[in-house]
């Protein structure tokens, strides 16, 4: 990697930055889920590793969250953008060199940021936990160069229109910049009180809604038509999806603070807008499932399709939960319980991770021109992810319902803790399965790069038969 940092742009092979981003994202995925599994063990067995400040739950918890969001998910996004954007514009990435630097600074910056956070250097604001000077580095050192590369690539495209995936990439990189800029104002300017509390959740909501959700969906808009060979079912529904994300997903931030003392109109407004998130969700899911028409055998035969479609299918329960759990009628019961943790993992570990997984699987094969090393290992990865996630989701949902009941019937808190214990253990088992699957994935991708069958010129990876 260091070799290319100082090479001339023309000398860097096409796709280099995408490969770096792809491999880095898998490594962060392994680290991030390993941390998650460690945290889960601590919640099940509080005396597992004690006596050290660094390994206490309070220090480790957010390192997991930030590692998976900024390491795994966002780097997989960057990898997808680095190869899909040029492919759709029939051109090369605007600057491969900027891409390589971007990846290098990202890895370096994130490692530093996570180390500091781990040591306790936190702003005390959930999801914007990094102190403000790190936020500025992320904004101008990581997000801005990524956005610049994507935007310039689209501007320099050699096709006439812009395909759906690229709308989302363009809008996503732009919106996440704005969200980071505005969402961190409480830290730059030391805003206080309700303004701070509200902006914290404004940030948390929008970074999920205007970055993770749309960009993950954009990946599916690429992989499904590309692999199955079917054109996208409807460009118009794509429009509906895009516009309703911008309008409905950017407004319900206050639904995270339904029981906080915020202005009542704001909470009601947020909650109505929150239900309307079902519009982009239904548009997205139906569009992609209809694109599969006649090609459903790929769901079974082809790993990337399996991942993508699973992600799309998981968007259904995700958005049904999301739309309704934030209304006043339901929120009072499940607010602040394990139900929400289950929901967060359904969004990030379910829906979005499966889509990013597809992008990384497919992208690495395409750019390296090597067929996946082992189908068996890929299937192992898929099933460990899916079963592990399901155990996680089911156990935490049950734990959440128990907590909700405890809250209403005024059960002494410690009895709730005791009742949740088996589910905490189950969550740890499920999460550890995910982690195990990821270690296998890392091995599989590594072997693909070294020993995968070379794909002949003019062929696509999924056209070749698997060998192992």
């Amino acid at each position, binding site marked *: 990697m260091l070799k290319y940092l100082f090479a001339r742009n023309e000398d860097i092979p096409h796709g280099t930055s995408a490969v770096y981003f792809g491999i880095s994202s898998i490594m962060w995925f392994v680290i991030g889920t390993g941390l998650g599994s460690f945290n889960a063990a601590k919640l099940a067995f509080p005396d597992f590793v004690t006596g050290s400040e660094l390994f206490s739950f309070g*220090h480790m918890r957010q390192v997991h969250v930030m590692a998976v969001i900024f390491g795994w998910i966002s780097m997989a996004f960057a990898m997808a953008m680095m190869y899909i954007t040029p492919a759709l514009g029939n051109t090369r990435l605007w600057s491969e060199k900027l891409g390589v630097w971007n990846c290098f600074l990202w890895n370096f910056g994130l490692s530093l940021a996570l180390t500091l956070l781990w040591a306790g250097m*936190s*702003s005390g604001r959930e999801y914007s936990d990094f102190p403000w000077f790190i936020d500025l580095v992320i904004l101008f050192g990581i997000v801005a160069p990524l956005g610049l590369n994507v935007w310039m690539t689209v501007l320099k495209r050699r096709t006439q229109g812009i395909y759906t995936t690229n709308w989302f990439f363009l809008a996503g990189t732009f919106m996440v910049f704005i969200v980071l800029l505005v969402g961190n104002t409480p830290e730059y300017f030391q805003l206080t*009180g309700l*303004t701070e*509390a509200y902006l914290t959740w404004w940030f948390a909501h929008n970074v999920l809604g205007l970055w993770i959700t749309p960009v993950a969906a954009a990946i599916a808009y690429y992989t499904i038509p590309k692999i199955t060979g079917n054109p996208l079912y409807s460009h118009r529904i794509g429009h509906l999806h895009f*516009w309703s994300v*911008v309008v409905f997903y950017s407004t319900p931030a206050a639904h995270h603070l339904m029981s906080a003392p915020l202005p009542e109109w704001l909470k009601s407004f947020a909650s109505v807008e929150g239900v309307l998130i079902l519009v982009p969700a239904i548009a997205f899911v139906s569009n992609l499932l209809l694109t599969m028409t006649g090609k459903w055998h790929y769901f079974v035969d082809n790993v990337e399709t399996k991942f993508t479609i699973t992600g799309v299918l998981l968007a259904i329960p995700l958005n049904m939960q999301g739309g309704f759990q934030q209304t006043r009628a339901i929120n009072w019961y499940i607010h602040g319980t394990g139900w929400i943790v289950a929901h967060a993992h359904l969004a990030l570990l379910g829906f979005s991770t499966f889509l990013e997984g597809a992008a990384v699987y497919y992208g690495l094969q395409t750019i390296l021109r090597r067929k996946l090393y082992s189908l068996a290992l890929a299937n192992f990865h898929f099933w460990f992810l899916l079963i592990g996630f399901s155990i996680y989701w089911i156990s935490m949902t049950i734990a959440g319902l128990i907590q909700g009941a405890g809250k209403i019937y005024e059960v002494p808190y*410690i009895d709730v803790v005791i009742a949740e*214990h088996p589910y905490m253990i189950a969550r740890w088992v499920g999460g550890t399965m995910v982690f195990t699957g990821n270690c296998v994935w890392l091995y599989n991708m590594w072997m693909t790069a070294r020993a995968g069958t070379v794909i002949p010129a003019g062929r696509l990876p999924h056209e070749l038969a698997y060998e192992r």
Partner: protein
Amino acid sequence: MAFREYKIGARLFGLALGGSMMITLYMPSLNIVEVASTETGLRKGLSYGRVGGFSVEDPFLQGEGKPKTVMLSQDPSTGQAIEPVYAYVYEAGTPFTSSIRHPRILGAGVKDLSLEQGRIGEANQASGAVFVVAEGSWNGESVSYIENATATRNWSPDAVLSAAGDANTRYIGSGKIMFVREGCWWCHTLLPEETQDWQVFGVPPRLGDYNSESPTAFGSDRKAPDLLHVGSRNSSREWMMMHFFNPRLVQPHSIMPRYDYLWGDNDAAGNRIDFVQWRNEYNAYVSGARVYPPEVPEPAADSEARYLIDFVLSLK
């Protein structure tokens, strides 16, 4: 431009995003700036100091650069006995809490009284100041406001601290830092819910309870009791001490982590704490080989454990 075909789209996009920001950022801010601080809000802001998370004066969250809260029952400048009052002492150089620097965030009324009667505009950060919360009336309503006792009563930070003594001094601001750094808010909330928490966890917060606090650290997922009013449920220092050292001493089923490392190296008497021996004895107790658990060492006066306990007990 390569976006020729997308002229309308690009404009609509700006309009949509701008509109959404207008509704979700600008309009709520109009409401929020109008909120006047309650007495609780004033006391929190004054006792926590400038920032409760990362800040330039305290980059590693050690609890530095924070005010001290003292209980005074004697006037430090005249020596006369007075009604006990809480004084918030900002020693020379300690950054002032936001409401002193920008009185506007106190909200109408509170701001006017604090500036006119409380003379907070005269407070000087470089030489330090002592604040108290006073009662006044504004437009016929009784309102709490901040009084700069250094200006109005001639109380200097040092005189107040020595008049009160360590026994009456609380490190609430530094304790809030510990609360944030140690991630207590990943398990505990500071937000009883409006719908059903009144009975068990107490009154939900009101709009004006936070005006000068940052971060508010409400917490979003609750695996443990709400702490906003924990000091009124349980005010025993002894219990807190044992519970933080090892929660399983007082609550065998607790999943709360041990915070024994907040004790530092030495206990209150200056003796070295032997954690290894403590653990061995505790393990023997758990396995039934000992009848009583080992004694929990008394935290030193400047230990992080003491800061944290001061903070937790201040949550009334």
